[in-house]
Every structure is written in structure tokens, then in C-alpha cells.
């Protein structure tokens, strides 16, 4: 990728406590989260985070509760100040911004969607969606026109004059998304935006997000603790543990080659056939005869159905019309077996 990343974190550390700066030498000396808490009463929130987030992609940050996901995403708009490190947006260091520069950044270049929706209860749905424009001091007509447009886009046309408490959770989060879209920013930060919703609504919202993303190509940073959600949405997946990045990269790659037991654990429960795609397990074209053609982006589940369980089949893989490789069903079966290092 030649393009410069939209958002770039370089060597970011965050330590919570009374004297975070003085803890840096300990952390550089290799002290872990638990030791630091036990010996110095400081919480190591993030350690040495280096992540590049590309424009137009969804970067998903995943980790268990307490792994530092919320802390990480709040560094991007400086709701939390880093203890050390650089945060670059379009190449500008956020840390060097003045107070008004930071406000402009939050108003015009980044918007945020929250786990608990965080809507203003005393404002109508329309006023909530228009919040970002209201903050910028835009005239009421423009505010309402834009807000109504995006409310309509997320499927809330006709609810403009309700209050948030009159809506269901899923609808409230649609307002949250409309509010972020109305801000018309390149970057959208979503902290467990769908975690509070029940599974069906959640799938709906994920589809809505993918649909909007196909249309708008925003740079989205999405936090989740759910691997299925991460795999569904991610272009780039970052896995956090105890405030450190354990692995990052293309999600299929992580699934096939987990870097450590923590991630193996994570991925062992997943329905691999549904998540893995032909692209990730195919080999170079070598066979003469094929049992049929499949698409690069098909998932393995559909292939198993196609082959009716016959492992001797070999399929030709097409990217649109052009052949790009072949898929041996035996490789497919191997890919379905999760790698467990503890078994070795």
C-alpha cells in the first residue's frame, strides 16, 4: 500500500495513576500490567501501540474486557491523553494541537458512536442527529435538513420528533449513527457500538454499517469484543491483550495463522467454514481438470455444500471472470482444523 495511513499510532503508551510519567522506565524495563499494579499502584492501560489505519477501511480493534480497547479509541480524539507516543491523523500530530485545533478536529474530522448511545434525553431525535452541526453553530435549517437526510438513510424517517426514550435500543443506536454521519467526518470511531443490542438487531446494524461503508468509504475504527462481529466487519484486525497488540493484520490471515495461544483460544470457537474464504486457502493454478468454478470471495461453507463432501474435488477459482488459482478440497479440510499449539 503506497497511500499514507489516515490514522497512525506510533509507540503509544498510557499509564493510569498519580505519577504516570515516572512509571515509564519500569515499563520500558519490561514490567507487565500485573506487576506494575501490584508494585506501584499504576494501571498499564496501553503499551507500545503501533497501528496504521488506512483511509476507507474498517479497522476493528478486538480484545477481552479490560484489554484497553476503549482507552485506545479515546486516544484518537484525545478524550484520553497518552503518557507517551504519537497520534497522527493525515500526518498531523494530534498531540501538537491547540485547544481550539483539537475542538475543530473533533467537530470536523472525527465523529463517535457510543456503546450506551449517549444521546441527549431532552432533545428530539432530529436535534440529536443535528448535534454536531449545532455545535458548529450552523443555521437551524441546514442542521435539520442534513439531520433529516441521514435519519432517513438509517431508516428512521418519521421519528424526527420523538424523544430517545421513546425508541428501542436498536433505533437509538441508529440515531447515534445518524448523528455521526451528519457530522460528515472522514473518520468514524465506534466503541462497542452494537454490543448493547440483541443478536438479530445486531446483525441488522452490522449490515447497515457495511452498506453505508460501501457507499461512503469512511475510515472506521470499530471496537468489539466479539470475534464474529470483528471478522464480519474488519478489513484490518487488531487484537489487544493487557494493553498490548498481540497480532494485527488481515482477518483471514490471523484466523489461519494465529500468533499465540491467546488468539488460538479466541479463534477456536469460531465457525471457520463460514468465515474463511476461498481467497485465503487457494493455491496456484496447476491442475488440468476442475470439478467446477468458484468465486474468490465465496466462503468455505458454500464450497462444502457444492462438493457434497467429496474431498477429491479440485475447483478453479475466479476473480470475476479471470481464473486466479485453484482450490483443493483437501486443503480446505485442513484449513478447517484449528491450530492448537497446546496439543503439540
Amino acid at each position, binding site marked *: 500500500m503506497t497511500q499514507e495511513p489516515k490514522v497512525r499510532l506510533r509507540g503509544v503508551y498510557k499509564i493510569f495513576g498519580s505519577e504516570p510519567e515516572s512509571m515509564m522506565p519500569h515499563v520500558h524495563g519490561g514490567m507487565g500490567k500485573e506487576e506494575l499494579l501490584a508494585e506501584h499502584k499504576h494501571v498499564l492501560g496501553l503499551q507500545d501501540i503501533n497501528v496504521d489505519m488506512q483511509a476507507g477501511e474498517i479497522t476493528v480493534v478486538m480484545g477481552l474486557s479490560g484489554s484497553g480497547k476503549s482507552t485506545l479509541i479515546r486516544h484518537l*480524539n484525545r*478524550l484520553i491523553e497518552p503518557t507517551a507516543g504519537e497520534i497522527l491523523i493525515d500526518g498531523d500530530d494530534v498531540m501538537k494541537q491547540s485547544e481550539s485545533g*483539537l*475542538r*475543530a*478536529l*473533533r*467537530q*470536523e474530522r*472525527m*465523529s*463517535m458512536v*457510543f456503546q*450506551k*448511545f*449517549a*444521546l*441527549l*434525553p*431532552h432533545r428530539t431525535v432530529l436535534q440529536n442527529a443535528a*448535534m*454536531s452541526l*449545532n*455545535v*458548529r453553530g450552523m443555521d437551524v435549517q441546514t442542521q435539520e435538513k442534513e439531520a433529516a437526510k441521514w435519519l432517513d438513510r438509517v431508516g428512521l424517517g418519521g421519528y424526527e420528533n420523538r*424523544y430517545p*426514550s*421513546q425508541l428501542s435500543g436498536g433505533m437509538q443506536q441508529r440515531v447515534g449513527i445518524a*448523528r455521526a454521519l451528519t*457530522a460528515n467526518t472522514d473518520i468514524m*470511531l465506534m466503541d462497542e457500538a452494537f454490543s448493547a443490542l440483541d443478536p438479530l438487531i445486531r446483525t441488522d446494524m452490522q449490515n447497515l454499517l457495511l452498506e453505508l461503508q460501501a457507499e461512503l468509504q469512511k475510515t472506521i475504527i470499530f471496537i468489539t469484543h466479539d470475534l464474529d462481529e470483528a471478522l464480519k466487519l474488519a478489513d484490518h484486525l487488531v487484537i489487544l491483550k493487557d494493553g498490548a497488540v498481540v497480532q494485527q493484520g488481515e482477518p483471514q490471515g490471523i484466523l489461519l495463522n494465529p500468533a499465540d495461544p491467546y488468539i488460538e483460544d479466541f479463534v477456536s470457537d469460531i465457525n471457520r467454514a463460514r468465515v474463511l474464504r476461498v481467497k485465503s486457502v487457494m493455491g496456484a493454478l496447476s491442475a488440468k481438470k476442475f470439478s467446477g468454478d468458484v468465486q474468490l470471495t465465496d466462503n468455505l461453507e458454500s464450497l462444502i455444500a457444492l462438493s457434497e463432501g467429496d474431498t477429491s474435488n479440485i475447483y478453479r477459482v475466479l476473480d470475476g471472470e479471470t481464473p486466479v488459482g485453484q482450490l483443493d478440497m483437501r486443503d480446505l479440510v485442513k484449513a478447517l482444523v484449528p491450530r492448537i499449539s497446546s496439543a503439540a
Partner: protein
Amino acid sequence: MAFYDWVFDGLGLREWCDSDTSAAPLSMADLLAQAGNDEGGEGVPFPSLDALNESCGTVSQTRDLTAGIEDAFLAAKSSLKLVLDPITQPLSWALDGALWLFQAVPWFVMIPLLVLLTWYVARSFAVTVFVALSFLFLGFIDHLDVAMQTLAIIFVCTGLSVILGVPIGIAMSKSDTMQRASIPVLDLLQTLPSFVYLIPLIFLFSVTESKLYGIAIILYAIVPIIRLTDLGIRLVDKDVIEAADAFGMTNRQKLIKVQLPLALPNIMAGVNQTIMMSLAMVVIASLVSAPGLGVLVLRGIRNLELGVGIVAGIGIVLLAVILDRTSKAALSRVDMGRNQN
């Protein structure tokens, strides 16, 4: 020979004690105490200032302490007055103006106005009818004038309490230091019996000035509005505040668009309490020439005019219920607006 002589002798302080034997003249109480002591004879007296003074003239007596406080206060009085007088003068004007207005407007205008006001803030049919009937009843038993005086004072004092209290509450909610410093003062204002802070006020201002009772009422009634503004703002959902920050609101925008509206139910509860406390205090303040129903209660006590006192008491209860119901109805209206379903 006094009981504690041996202490001073033992410490070799006898000389120091006798160096200043110009002891203050004995008061009647001292004389009585001494007489009592001589008869009682045995027992160990508490080593109080007075007991020690008997053995050693240099030690002050307790009444020197109270005299000292008084002297210090009197010494500071003129400079305090120089500062406080001009600052508080508008309070006198406001009180006198309101008293004049509430009495100058004829009853057939005043009662409908008050009933309309009730309807406007409470939007409750029952409350409005109750208020109208109460005022008519007060008029019927010839207590409307005094009730209006009481009401005028309450309006002015509550209004000023809100104007001063809300910003103080906001400041407290913004700064933990400010909160820690203010809470003991608020506790003190709320727990001191009201009579106690009338005393220094009487020294500072003349009893003929309305601001004297105005200040007494405000000091007492401002506490809940400050506390509940502070509490209300601190209780605003952290997530909503974070959203406000994330969308780049300035502190001012955050206060006006988010914190104050969300704290409003608590602030209104504070206003309700402030009104009730001004009413309680305006009765006591009749001791220092506040006009109104309290004066009649006082007359009832002084002259043992049972009927006068009780009728005035009923008037106060009526006012209390009116004010409470109206402000509570306004409060629940705000609450309802939040979660209209």
C-alpha cells in the same frame, strides 16, 4: 485559698500570677458561685478558666472571652459595614419594592395574576383551583394583606437565592477543591439555629433596614439550591458528557446545552426546598421586623392572643401548601417532559 493554688506554686508561677492582680470585679454569678463553693467545700472543681482565675489572677475569666469576641466584632464592624452596606443595599430596595407592589396592586388584580402564574408554572387544574380558593379564603378572613407581604418577601428571597445559588452550585460541581471548601460552610448555615445568625446581623445592620431579614432568609434558604445544583450537574450521565466532548463542544456549550438541562429536575427540587425554607425563616425573621404573617404569630405569643396566633398559623400553613404544591407540580412537569411515553 482556691483549689488550684498548688499547681501554680508547684510550677513556680506564683510571681507571674501576682504580677497583675487587678482582677476584674466579681459578677453576681461569681459571688453566688463562691458562696456555694464555701458551703459545699469538698469536691474537685473542673479546671475551667474561672476556677484557675481564683488561684491566679493573670488567667482570664470566661466572661473575658465573650467580651473579647464582642470587642473584636465591634472593632471589625465599621469596616465590614463599609463593604457590606453598598453590596446589600439593592436587597433592601428589592424587598421594599416588592412589598410595596404586592400591597399596592388591588386584590381583584393580584389574585387572578397569582392564579394565572400558578397555572403557567404548574399546568395542573387541581393545584390552580386550590390556590385560587386559598387566596379567596385568606381575603375572606382579612389576612390577604399580610399574606401578600410574606409572599413578596419569599419571592424576592427565593429569586435571589436562585440567582446566586445556581452559579455557586455550578462552580462547586466544576471543582473538587471548591466543593470541599464549600460543604462545611453549607453544613454550618443549615445546622446553626436560625436565631444564632440573626445576632451578628443585628450588630451589622439596623433593625429598620429590610436587608437585615433579607440576608437572614437568603443565608438560610440558599443552601439547598446550591447543594442540588452541584449534585444535579455531577450526576449527569458521564457517557453523555463524553459524547459532548467527542463532538467538540466548548465548556460553555456543554454547560448550557447538556449539563444544566439534564440537572434541571434536581435544580427544581432545590428551588422547592429553598421556597419552603424561606417561608420557615420569614416567620422567624419577624423578630427582626420582617412584616407579614409572622408578625401576627409573634403577637399571639407575646400577648397570649391565642386566636390571632392560630389564624396566622393557618395562613402560613396555607401558603406553605400552595408554594409546595405549585413548585412540585412544576418539577414533575419537567420530569415528565424527559420521559414522555
